[in-house]
């Protein structure tokens, strides 16, 4: 039983490490800031998720597991806010995303505002 739990925990931690590495790798390979954010989001969803799951198996039932799950919840609720703020800041600075296709104008009249979609402040 303990061996099975250990094996599962090692498997999950290795999987988490793999996705963390993939995220870091993508961060280097992607051409510009917006596509890099997509690579980073692999790290802070799948990487963190599998690592924490693996650690909860090591910790067993108890307060430590509960705290690890709070940590996961913290990532799930703050991660997107940070990513959104970063994307918004980049658009506001006038950084143009490198696009293969821009469908913003197809659903409504194209706006001349460089940071299209940003809420008026």
């Amino acid at each position, binding site marked *: 039983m303990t061996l099975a739990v250990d094996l599962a925990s090692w498997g999950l931690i290795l999987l988490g490490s793999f996705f963390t590495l993939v995220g870091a790798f*993508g961060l280097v390979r992607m051409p510009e800031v917006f596509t890099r954010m997509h690579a980073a989001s692999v790290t802070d969803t799948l990487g963190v998720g599998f690592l924490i799951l693996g650690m909860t198996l090591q910790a067993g039932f108890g307060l430590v597991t509960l705290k690890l799950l709070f940590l996961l919840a913290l990532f799930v609720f703050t991660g997107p806010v940070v990513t959104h703020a970063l994307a918004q800041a980049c658009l506001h600075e006038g950084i143009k995303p490198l696009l293969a*296709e821009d469908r913003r104008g197809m659903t409504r009249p194209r706006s001349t505002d460089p940071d299209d979609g940003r809420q008026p402040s």
Partner: protein
Amino acid sequence: MIRYFSLAGLLFAFWLALSGHYTPMLVTAGAVCAVACVFAAIRMRAADPEGHPIELFRGAITYFPWLFLEITKSGWSVTKVILDPSLPISPTMTVVRASQKTPAGMATYANSITLTPGTITVGVSGDEFTVHALVRDGADDLEGGGMDRRVSQFEGAA
């Protein structure tokens, strides 16, 4: 009123979970702090349907497992894109409509888009989200509205 009691109960449970010491003095201090925090939250108008959405708790039980499954699926496809030697990205900006009625529901949809690897909500105006997708397929999926319907269902589950 139920909202305030639920907030106090949750804060107290959070205190107990983080403290790990259960002497009468510390537990009483926790209870007092939880109640004080609720009063502060009421004064800051943070204990409203947006700050503490108890209406959404029931739907969350099925919504989060579904979201984690979606994250895993799209995380895997982004992983394949990253590891592909030819780096087959086709960044796409698009606008999707959010059909949610409450601020908490819309925030959930926007955050779910961002949380799923391969798509980021970069802007919100009214009920329209500007979304940046790593590959065309990601934008197509969102325009299809599957996730939008699932979030609306989660919002309406109360």
